[in-house]
Every structure is written in C-alpha cells, then in structure tokens.
C-alpha cells in the first residue's frame, strides 16, 4: 500500500510564489504546480474567484454566461469560427465553468501541440471580444435549458435543482448557476463586460498547471497572465439562511409516470476538518454514490426493486446521473446533507419517502456498528484512489485544496484519516451534524395535491409488489407503511412546473 502514498507525494505538491507587478507592488500570486514528467499532455486551469454567488440581483446567470462567452466566443484577434478551425487539428480546446464560487478556465493539450495551442488559450482569457452574435447564441441556449431541458428531460436533476434552491432561497446560493429565466433575459453585453472587468483580473486568480510542462513554460504562463487588467480580489458574499424548522416540502406538479424525491439540510462542515472525514465514512455507508454498497440502495432498490438507485451526499454533486466520481471545482463554503431517491412509480411515492426517512432516523439514532465502520473505511481508503487517476483531475483537486485552505492534499488526508478515525468519531459526527426533524424535501410528481393530502393526514401507504419478496421485507413494510413523517400542516407547498426558475 505504501506505493500509492509515494505516488501522490511525488507528484502532488504546490508552490506559492511571489511575483512583482510592473509598478513594483508586490503581488501575492498563487500557483499550483503538479509536474508529471512522463505525462505527454499539459493541463492548465486558471481559477478566478467568482461564481453564481456573485451574480447581481436580477441578473442571475451572469457568471455562467460570462464564462461560456469567454470559452465559446470570439477574441479580438479571431472569430469563434477561426478559433475552432485553429484548435481542430490539435484535438484540444478550452472551456470555462462557473459554479457557485469558482470560475475555472481550463485546457489540456498534447505536448507536441503546446506551442500552437498556448497563444489561443491565452488569447481567450486575455482578449475576449464579447460579440453580439456569440452572446445571442449562448443566451438562447441557456434560456432553452431553463425553460425546457431541465424541466422536462430529467426529473431527477430537476428535483435536485429544486432542493438546492429551496434550501438556499434568498441567499446568493439561491439560484442554479445557469440563473433564472428573467435573469438571463435581462443580461446585456454590457453586464458581461462589467462582470469580466470586475472578476477576471490579475489579483483574482490562481494558476493551476500540471503534466509534462517545462519550468520555462510555467514562468511564461505566470508572466503572461499578469497582462490581465488591474483589479481587486473577488469577495464572497455571506450565505445566511434561516434555520430550517420541521420537515418542509415543496412539490412540483408534473404529469410524469414516476416521482423524483430529494431531501436534505445544510451542514456546517467542509472538507479538511477531521469531522468531515468521519461524516464521509458515515455517508458512504448510508448512500455511497452509484454504489450497491449504499444502505439506502440496498433497502429501496436491491430488496424491493422500486427504482434504479438511492444515495446520499455531504457535498454538492451535480450531474450525478452522468458521473461516477465526485466532480472538481464545485467547491462551496456551505454544503448540505442530501438524499437522492431516483424516480419511483407514483403509486409507491409515499411508501418510499417513508422508507428513506425511516432509514435516516435509524441511521442517526443507532450510528454505525464497529463492523460497518471497519468495512466502510476499508472501502474508502482504496476507493478514493479512483477519484482522480488523471493528471487533470488531480489538478482540479489541488485547486479545490487551495479553496478550502487544506495544507497538503485532501485526497491524501482522506486516506490517512481512514486509518486514524474511530467508530466513536464517526457516530459522534453523525449526531453532531445530521438530524431528521428539520429538513427540506423536493418532490417532482403527478397529482401533487393528492400526495399533499396523504402526507398531511399521514395516510397509511401499504405496498404491493408484482413479484414475491423475502419474508423480512414484508415484515418491515408493515412498519414502513405507517411510519410517521411529522410534516406540520402548512409546511407543504405546491409549485407548478412553469413557475420554476422564473
């Protein structure tokens, strides 16, 4: 096992260096370097401290639109068409993503092509031209995403988006990164230029560089980025939300054959802290993402065949249906604990919600047994190796480490903590951070009124299966069907699909 540690230590280190600006003021510039000698490619990531939390009120979506326009639009030198032509034979491109707190401009190229590629990469970030043509295209696409794609083509992603907005409503996290329909519609090119000028400046970035680059190239990149305009570091607005009282439900009425359910609540814990790793073990046991080891998966899918999967999270995990491993550069100062129930037949929705809540209660009340703890930490110690086998992913993690202020590396710490934590640490973290009394639930379903009534009256929800199940399943079902959800009257509201993301 020692080999892995050696591997990470050899290639995973970062440097903070001091550079001087032209006018002589010392400028603290962060640089994250991950040289990998044998890697035939070079990965670049420039992180600007801005994200959807910085969208001005009424202009929700501005950080997202700006990032896309930088990476999918013309520069002063080249039209977008010309850029695509030039990048094409290199099999390389550049992209920018804006999450809640981070905007990251990234590219990856084969070493053979670095010299041709690099000026294009640099030009994209230094000299965007913000053309009307590119702007219209990207704005249209975003509005289509908010009005049709997200609402109609994947109810589970929709459910998760609704849950995040519901938990963080009235805070800078209260809209998804693509914004709101009215926000995007009201964004002008002038807004984009202002956002770029404010946040894409020389005092507001961290450079990430990884793979088979030379020292000379690293110096050149640093120097070139100092050509970004003068400015001030971005500020992160406070995320103050009202504590959740009781179980609150928002239902979206949608004519769909299956019901998507997500629920959760904020947790005051971010990676890097000891408790985070303890809670990571607990969470992995309860609901490891897309893994049959997840306890919720065992109860709802494996034993009962009610849906495709059931998982839980202690960090934001967007696009869970499309990815196996956690994403990078989605870092946030505020995280939630979240349970994701993939679509279930409408007639089982009440039963499944009860089953999931009941499992959560049992989990919090009882904690993990020493055996469950042992198995889960053993799992995670190796499973974490699969989080970032690629150089580019490791660079993403290294930038996130910088965001969270982690000395060394989160992934290394993760593995180390698996040997240091005890079952008591884990159970204490469960009791400290998790609860089943105060939370928000987002449900996408047909006949929301009917479900509301059933929830308010705690109507019994017996389940029948078209195929036989194990005896202990039937016994447990009798408890589940009348499990009390304790949702106070007035805590359930129904929204129409068309009202979302307005």
């Amino acid at each position, binding site marked *: 096992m020692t080999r892995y540690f050696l591997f990470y230590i050899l290639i995973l280190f970062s440097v903070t260096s001091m550079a001087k600006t032209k006018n002589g003021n010392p400028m603290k510039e962060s640089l994250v370097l991950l040289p990998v000698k044998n890697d035939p490619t070079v990965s670049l990531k420039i992180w600007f401290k801005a994200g959807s939390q910085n969208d001005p009120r009424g202009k929700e979506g501005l950080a997202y639109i700006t990032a896309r326009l930088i990476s999918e639009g013309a520069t002063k030198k080249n039209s977008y*068409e010309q850029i695509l032509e030039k990048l094409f034979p290199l099999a390389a491109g550049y992209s920018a993503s804006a999450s809640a707190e981070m905007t990251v401009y990234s590219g990856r190229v084969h070493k053979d092509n670095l010299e041709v590629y690099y000026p294009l990469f640099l030009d994209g970030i230094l000299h965007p031209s913000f053309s009307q043509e590119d702007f219209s295209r990207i704005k249209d696409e975003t509005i289509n995403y908010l009005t049709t794609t997200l*609402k109609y083509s994947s109810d*589970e992603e929709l459910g998760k988006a609704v849950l995040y907005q519901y938990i963080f409503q009235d805070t800078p996290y209260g809209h998804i990164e693509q914004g709101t329909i009215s926000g995007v519609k009201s964004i002008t090119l002038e807004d984009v230029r202002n956002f770029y000028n404010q946040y894409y400046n020389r005092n507001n970035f961290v450079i990430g560089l990884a793979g088979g680059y030379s020292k000379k190239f690293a110096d050149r990149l640093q120097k070139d980025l100092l050509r970004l305009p003068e400015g001030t570091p971005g500020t992160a607005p406070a995320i103050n939300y009202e504590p959740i009282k009781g179980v609150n439900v928002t239902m979206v009425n949608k004519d769909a054959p299956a019901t998507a359910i997500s629920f959760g609540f904020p947790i005051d814990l971010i990676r890097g802290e000891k408790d985070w790793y303890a809670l990571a073990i607990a969470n992995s046991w309860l609901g490891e993402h897309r893994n049959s080891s997840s306890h919720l998966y065992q109860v709802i899918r494996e034993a*009962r065949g009610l849906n495709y999967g059931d998982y839980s999270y202690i960090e934001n995990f967007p696009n869970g249906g499309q990815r196996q491993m956690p994403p990078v550069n989605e870092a946030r100062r505020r995280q939630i604990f979240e349970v994701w129930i*993939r679509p279930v037949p409408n007639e089982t929705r009440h039963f499944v919600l009860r089953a999931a809540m009941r499992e959560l209660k049992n989990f919090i009340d009882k904690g993990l047994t020493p055996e469950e703890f042992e198995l889960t930490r*053993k799992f995670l110690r190796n499973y974490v190796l*699969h989080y970032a*086998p690629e150089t580019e992913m490791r660079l993403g993690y290294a930038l996130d480490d910088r965001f969270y202020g982690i000395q060394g590396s989160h992934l290394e710490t993760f593995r180390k903590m698996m040997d240091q934590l005890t079952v008591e640490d884990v159970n204490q973290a469960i009791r400290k951070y998790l609860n089943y009394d105060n939370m928000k639930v987002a449900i996408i379903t047909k006949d929301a009124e009917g479900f509301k009534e059933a929830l308010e009256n705690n109507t019994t929800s017996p389940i029948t299966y078209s195929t036989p199940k194990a005896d202990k399943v039937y016994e447990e079902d009798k408890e589940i069907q009348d499990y009390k959800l304790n949702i106070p009257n007035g805590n359930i509201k129904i929204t129409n699909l068309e009202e979302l993301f307005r």
Partner: protein
Amino acid sequence: MARTKAEKIFPYNYTTTKLDNGLTVILVPMDSPGLTSYYSVVRTGSRDEWEPGKSGFAHFFEHMMFRGTDKYPGPVYDGIITSLGADANAYTSDDLTVYHLNFASDDLEKVIELESDRFQNLKYDVREFQTESGAVYGEYRKGKTSPWEVAFEKLQDMAFDKHTYKHTTIGFEQDIKDMPNMYDYSISFFKRYYRPENVVVLVVGDFKKDNALKLIKKYYSSWKPGYVNPEITPEPPQTAERSTVVNYPGKTLPLLIVSYKGDAFDVKNKNILSSVLVGDLAFGETSDIYKKLVLKEQKVQFIQADFGFSRDPKLLYIYSMVKDPKDVEYVKEEIYKTLADFQNTLVEKQKLSNLKKKERYSFLMHLDTPDNVAGFLPQFITLTGGIDVVDELYSGLDKITPEDIRQAARFYFMPEKRNVVLVRGEN
C-alpha cells in the same frame, strides 16, 4: 502525419492469448502505480436478443450478474468488492456487455477469482430475479423522460423490420414488463452466451504479465465452452425512405434525426472508414453547416453526426435540435444539401489532413489511465475479437483520400437508405 505501415499508434505493448476453452485474454501493462483495470467483455448485447418477446434481456442480465454464486452469494460478492474499495460497474449496448473494475493492483488475484467465479457459476433464485426486473423498469422510466430516448426508440423500430437492431438496448416496454416471467429463459441466456468463446478478459495497468496470465489460467480453465450463435435475421436492403413524427409528452425544442443505413464494421472497407471521417468533416465544429446553422443563422441549438461502428449494418446518425419548429424543413434541406456537396465535390486535402491529425491526437491524449485505455477497447473487441484492429484502423484512416470520402458519401447517403424522425414537444 503520414505513417508507414509498420508504425503502431497504440502506445502500449500487449499480449493476446487464447486459452484451450476459447477464452481470449488481452494483457496491457502500463505505468499506473498501484492501479489496475479489469474488463470482462461479453460479445453479446441487445443485438443477440433474436427471440420475440425477449428484447432488453442482455441489459437485464447485466443486472443479474451481480446476484452472486454459491461460493460468493450477492451480498458476499458486494462485501468483498466494497472491502477492496474497487470501482465496479457494468454497461450494455447493442453489441456488447462489459463488466469492469478499477482496483488496487495488490488485489488482482482476488478480482480474477471473483470474476471467474460469477461467469462460471452464477446462481440466483426466482425471487431475486423478479425483484431485479423492477429496478430495470425503473431504469426505463428514468430514461423515458428524455426526448432523445423517445426519438431513438422510435427510430430503431422504424428503420429495422427483421434485424434485432429494431429495439434499443433497454428493450421494448412490453417485454420489460414481462421480464418477471422469464426466469427459465434467463438461465438459458446465460448458458448460451456467457461462455468462454464469447468473452474476452482485458487487463490494463500495473501488473506483471506472466503472473496475471498464470492466475487467469488457474481460475478460468475449468470454464466449459458451449457458446450458441444467435439466430439473427439479416435486415433486407431498404428500398424507400422512411420518416415519422413523434409527439413528446413535455416541452422540448424539435429534435430532428436524419439517418442512413450503414455497413457492418470491416477495417478493410474504405467506405466504412471514410464514413467516420465524413461525420466530422460534414457536421463537426469546423464544418460549413455548423458555421451556418449554429454560429451564423443560429437556427439550431446544435447539430452533430454519429457515424460509428457496429457488428451488423446499422445507422449513421445526424441529429439536431432546431430552435423554431418552422425551421425544421429548412434544417433538413440543409443537411441534405451538405451530404450532396460531399457526393459532388472533393473535400480539401488540408481539411482532411487536419482531421487525421485531430483523430490521432485525441486518441493519444485519451490513453492516460488504465480505465481510459481499457474503456476504449471493448468496442473493437466486440467487433473483431481482439485489439490488433486499432493499429489497422488508424493506419487505414490515414490512407483515406478525398476520392474515398466522395465515394462513401455517394454510397451511403441515398434517399432510399434514409430514416428520418422528428420529435415535437407540447410547446
């Protein structure tokens, strides 16, 4: 970028061994300290579901493979995989089913033992079988909210009369509903297709070749051959254009899929290799139609082509999301015009050589981890039984000329080979 025939583009040395029982073993050591990927490629996908009423079975069976054996019952298998911290999963498509694990190299023997055991001794009872069918139906429901799923389901049904490509991998809904009653059939499915002659074991990563081969022989040699070929009816040539309109129960921009009947993969068939290049030349990000419809006129949200490889003749797809329903006909005509241009005009040499360079570099850049290397190979394994074809393919692509491209366009893009689906939303 011209390369001699001898030049190998696949950058790793590998060995291919056939065991006495017919099992093929491909070993690809690479520099990836401590990590190995183990892929079991079954050369059976939804294509092999030739019996009426049995569509979706290859995929359903993929689920059943996690239910265990006498020696390692499902929960025990899961427990061991969990204790190894392995990243384990599986997928099914038209032509293949793949079971894959990424794990710490020290655990290689355990993984070989577990995988060889379930491929030889899978055992599950009726109840487990029926419960899993519920999860499969859940997967169908989850997918069905996407207008693309609706579109492809309709397209394949319309384009094929006899061949099993008529159904998508998940299967016809009525067959999925009937799955709980198919326990006995599932046993016969396993006995016919999960045989060493139809499976290729692929190991990529940080391991010693000799040791891996010794272990694979130790654990797999007892596996008895007995593969039975599926009785797939070839699709008769299509003689007239087919098209349909589907109403999607929700909002979506119109989706337009224009597709043409293709050929079975054959690395020596220049038309097939050329078609892959045409897809990118005609509809990629640097194509004229992309510039016109996406960037300039902004009539479509996107347009792209998927001219892939298949074991039997399938479809070459061009798909687009049109912004205004009024423009659907216009976009369709633009697609036809683009294809006609490729039939009439020779593509510029520079464009073609840029594309070849791009293909080569995107291939090389992708091969950076054991999982990425291993994940790229199953399609070639299912098409040809091995991976020697990768070098042949890239050297074949390198030799394609503008004349070849024109010839392929003339061969495939004929109105009588065309199948068109339009999906309309309730906007």
